[in-house]
């Protein structure tokens, strides 16, 4: 190798030229992409208006339980006495015994407010993101239950393994400063809480 530097040879010249070429190529690649590069990273999110509640958010995430959770938008919740996202279909009385509850993980909490209104809360520690409550809430109620990728849990894989399987193509990369697609919210006004993360 040291020979090359001492006496310039044909091979040495070729190598130098190729080196310059490679530098230019890398620089060019950088320039081609940096022009439109973004300061922010992308994150994965699903559009609740496209979601068909196929259940794969619960099964396809690399995390177990999934980083997808049901969220409750209190802004549009009807505070129904008989919540179709909470109770099993076909029940005869509004008894909150486990056999009457729809959620397979028991993650929905029902809190009495005043006659005949009840508040419904999701316990994200228990929620598995299956979306079973989402469909009846949308059909019978206002659709205040819907699925979202929770960014305090999502590890932001370069290729989301749920997105690959999503039958309705509801997953997309969204800018990290607007990371939620909440039904009933102006995307600019979603209240975000920063956190310590990896």
């Amino acid at each position, binding site marked *: 190798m040291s020979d090359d530097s001492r006496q310039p040879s044909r091979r040495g010249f070729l190598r130098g030229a190729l080196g310059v070429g490679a530098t230019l190529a890398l620089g060019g690649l950088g320039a081609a992409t940096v022009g439109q590069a973004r300061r922010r*990273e992308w994150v994965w999110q699903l559009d609740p208006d496209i979601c068909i509640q196929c259940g794969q958010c619960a099964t396809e995430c690399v995390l177990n339980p999934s980083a997808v959770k049901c969220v409750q938008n209190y802004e549009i919740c009807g505070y129904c006495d008989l919540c179709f996202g909470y109770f099993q279909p076909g029940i005869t009385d509004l008894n909150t015994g486990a056999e009457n509850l729809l959620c397979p993980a028991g993650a929905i909490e029902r809190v009495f407010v005043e006659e005949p209104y009840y508040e419904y809360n999701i316990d994200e520690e228990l929620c598995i993101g299956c979306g079973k409550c989402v469909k009846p809430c949308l059909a019978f109620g206002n659709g205040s239950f819907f699925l979202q990728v929770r960014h305090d849990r999502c590890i932001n894989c370069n290729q989301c393994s749920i997105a690959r399987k999503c039958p309705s193509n509801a997953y997309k990369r969204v800018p990290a400063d607007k990371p939620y697609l909440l039904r009933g919210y102006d995307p600019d006004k979603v209240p975000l809480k920063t956190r310590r993360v990896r």
Partner: protein
Amino acid sequence: MRLKPRIWLAAGTMALLGMAWAAEQRFPKPDFESGYNFPQYQHAAPAPWFYEFLDAAVLLGALSLGTYFVLKKRTRRGMLGLTIFSLLYFGFYKQGCICAIGAIQNMSLALFDPEYAVSYGTLIVFLAPLFFALLFGRIYCGGVCPLGAIQDLFALKPIAVPRWIDRALGVFPYIYLGAAVLFAATRADFIICRFDPFVPLFRLTGHWQTLWLGAGFLLVGVFIARPYCRYFCPYGVLLGWMSRLSKWHMSIAPERCTLCRLCENSCPFGAINTPTQPPREPRAHGVRRLAMLFALIPALLIGGGAIGWFAGGPLSRAHRTVALAERVAVEDAGWVEGSTNASDAFRMSGATKQELLADARSLRQAFRIGGAGAGAFAGLAFGLLILGSSVHRTRDEYNVDRATCFSCARCIPYCPEDPSSKILQEKQCL
């Protein structure tokens, strides 16, 4: 304890927020008499932006440190420490994403899809190791890459893979690279990430197939050092090109090789070139062989391109749109029973079948063209490999093969000329 994801705010504020939403769907909440306060979610934000740059800075720092260890200090111990750090930080802490190998796909997508733009962090992660390779060799492989690091630590009983097998298998990364760029550029899939054997191990979660794949690689890696790096890694192809042209690459001997052969078996990756003499054969022989090989290269190029073109059609099914179009067509023709979630979702979406089929056709064509390109690329790589292995060069010293050397510094202590050499130290002790 995790903070409760919601806080309680006054109902008045909430009513204001509610109004901000589209009037069409404006919904008045029940007017409770009991003084109930409406709860509100606070949605956790993703990592703040500076984390990305922090990671990029750590990457640059690790690359610089590796360069210092290999080129200046010439210390294997330093490299080993860096390897362990990288495994812990980039591997188990960062959990593998985003890595330079996967960033190939982000770059491809950014080049081919005008809607997608890479972030600065990703750009740095992709380009920095290449620039370092262009200057100093594959420092990234040697001590920074978490995938390399985990395999490096498992290389306990390395055997020498016969050189012809080693070289022949070295063609696969070119095919993998071509396929990865093709799949990413068509928005079909990120196959490098999907088939990454080690990231599930870093996360300790994932589908069982990939966990087994990772375990299998590590097991094989006990005997065949760094199997993923040598025979699969598509980023290694790019790094190899850069490293071949590197300005200051490490060498085994600090000054001149004394041909003592002590380093001959020190490299577990078969990246040390031994001194060779030109074969004793008539010059015309060599020239004829060379001419034949030069004729072979275009043939391989065209052959690879043709294979890629014909493979492109079936491969395009990996794209959801093509798969969906075929499914819808097959359902409409009555060849299958029932419908899938995807076809149901498509029929509910109101899009027309003609649009879907047109999209699928253009994607299939893109796959054919891209497949031909990737095939030709792999064919060329194969041709150049044969050419390279049949051109005999005169080498008068033991030194590293710049394209395949990972700059791990394992060979340095074996050189008696090196101050850190075990042999030298033993001599001094005596």
